[in-house]
């Protein structure tokens, strides 16, 4: 075991995957010689050569669509989208082809590929570098949607995504890339897609969240415990599609009070679906309306105002207080 940052764990996962399967390759903008703008693919070009760590021309529709062709032909492309805001040019290939080729061809053609997408805010970057796109793609069928929250899961989930027979959007919490280290096995292991994790156990209320927000939720839980003695259960969804409904509903039925936490724009966000699922499966258990802590219905602000947008611990604690004091 070695202590790794989240970005190191991703880099390690890619190396492990490429060593065990010659069909795995990475492609995208600056992923080769430069090792990626976040260095996620650092060293791959040197170890695996230019045919497996491929610098492409600057055209997302081009390399995402071409990667689909590669996947159908039998390769296992792991595409890096440089930043969340730049998936947009490939939107058509994603929703009209990659998500559909299996269904369209009734299983004759499949598209096992992974799109790694540094996502969400928190690094004070320029516009289009801090987006929350999960709400759209959770509504697109045929894609899986995975969001790790720590180095161990990042490696295990990425390896599971590469193994998966279907296309996976792998949303990486960029603000956690170098935030902390964790013990991560050097060998191959997977964390199954579709299983949530109880990041913290509790009986008084539940926070449903994922990715970078898990850290915020844990801090808020600490504070709530210290200030109010509340035992908060934090559910780290890890994968939004497939979704671990049993764990979600189980926790809500246990605590009877829930907060959903994301930084996606509020209207029609994935958090809305979580509330709808609670409505469908556990409404009668609720002691209070589910509180949602989300981003606002505005474009992610430039860096001086970024912290106004991203839900911080205070906003989460306020929501906890709401559901507890209803």
């Amino acid at each position, binding site marked *: 075991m070695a202590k790794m940052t989240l970005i190191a764990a991703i880099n390690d996962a890619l190396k492990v995957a490429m060593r065990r399967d010659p069909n795995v390759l990475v492609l995208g903008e600056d992923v080769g010689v430069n090792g990626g703008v976040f260095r996620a693919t650092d060293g791959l070009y040197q170890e695996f050569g230019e045919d497996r760590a491929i610098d492409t*021309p600057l055209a997302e529709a*081009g*390399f995402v669509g071409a990667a689909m062709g590669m996947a*159908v*032909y039998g390769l296992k492309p792991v595409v890096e989208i440089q930043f969340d805001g730049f998936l947009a040019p490939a939107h058509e290939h994603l929703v009209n082809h990659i998500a559909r080729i299996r*269904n369209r061809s009734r299983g004759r053609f499949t598209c096992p590929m992974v799109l790694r997408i540094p996502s969400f805010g928190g690094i004070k970057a320029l516009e289009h570098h801090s987006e929350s796109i999960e709400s759209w793609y959770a509504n697109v069928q045929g894609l899986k949607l995975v969001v790790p929250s720590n180095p161990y899961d990042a490696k295990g989930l990425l390896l599971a995504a590469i193994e998966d027979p279907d296309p996976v959007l792998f949303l990486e919490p960029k603000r956690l890339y170098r935030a902390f280290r964790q013990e991560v096995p050097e060998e191959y292991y997977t964390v199954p897609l579709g299983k949530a994790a109880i990041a913290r156990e509790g009986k008084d209320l539940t926070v449903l969240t994922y990715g970078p927000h898990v850290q915020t939720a844990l801090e808020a839980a600490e504070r709530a415990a210290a200030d109010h003695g509340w035992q908060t259960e934090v559910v780290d969804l890890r994968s939004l599609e497939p979704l671990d*409904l049993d764990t979600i509903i189980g926790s809500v039925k246990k605590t009877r009070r829930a907060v959903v936490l994301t930084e996606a724009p509020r209207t029609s966000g994935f958090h809305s679906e979580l509330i709808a699922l609670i409505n469908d499966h556990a409404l009668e258990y609720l002691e209070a309306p589910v509180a949602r802590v989300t981003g606002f219905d505005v474009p992610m602000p430039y860096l001086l105002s970024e912290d106004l947008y991203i839900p911080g611990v205070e906003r989460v604690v306020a929501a906890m207080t709401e559901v507890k004091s209803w």
Partner: protein
Amino acid sequence: MATIETGKLNMENLFAIRRVLNSDGTLAGPEPNLAPAQLKEVYRLMVYLRSFDQRSLNLQRQGRMGTFAPFSGQEACQVGSAYLLQKGKDWIFPTYRDHGAMQVLGVPSVNVLRYYMGDEKGSRVPEGVNSFPISIPIATQLVHAVGVAWAAKLKKDDVVTVGYVGDGGTSEGDFHEALNFAAVFNTPAIIFIQNNRYAISTPNSKQFKTRTIAQRALGYDIPGVRVDGQDILAVLAVMQEAIDRARSGGGPTLVEALTFRYGPHTTSDDPKRYRTEEELVEWQARDPIERLRRYLVAKGLWTDQEDEGLWSWAKDQVAAAVTEAESMPRPAVDEIFDYVYAEPTPELVRQKEYLKRQLGRQGSGEANTHG
């Protein structure tokens, strides 16, 4: 000054239209090096496809099929672009109008019929037939054609791919991105443009300023060529060169075939709103089937009886396919859920159960009886 010099280039000469047969079936140049058997084979294929296309149009008019995109008039392109490919090895990436090429490569007519009747199983091409399903989003399939060619190259397979696109499709960004990737990675992908002069109602003159599309090749440093798309022997000659180039590591080729669709864009379209009867008649006079027939007859390779026989054989073949297609059962309810993922998610299982409960309640199930 550069900006003036470039204007001097005469693209129509630079990309002179390749032709083997004149409209009347006489030789425009040297004899093609195709065996009589091959000449008859491509003729047979064109006749079959014309029959298939016409019958499909009728089926749609009779309400026995959904919206249909006919290719009549473009048979030389459909057959010529796919005939020389190695079945089970090379790949094609068709649009809604290339179900002729699909059948040439080996996709059963029944698949095409079921597709247009509204059954996804039609898009499930048999194992061993390397045709992508019909792609409707314009020009997207070109990028897939380059991706598969690229993958094959990386795997050291000497596979060739053909991506189909229309004149209108060349305006999409994907056309550019596909050509650029093909050029940069020197992929064995052939971009086959059927320039039938219209994108639905939009004529070439509103689609691009240039007199040729082939000249776009100059922007990528790849070979480009224009060919008479009503002359199957010319299309075959151009494709042979492109396929040889691709298979031998020479990379991509941009082919512009000049052609015309006799019918509507689809069965929902009314061409009278945007093109003249004269234009249609003018093009029918260059009919690819009639042209090759005359050549074959002149060479003493073909007789009128044989021709009659072929047309009625084709009619019967198509009729048999239609019967088979119409005898197939409606898609089962499960089908719409079972192919979204390799393993249906728990949520999909719940949704399928719900729908089946519903249909049960509704007896025969109002939902899936009509259509």
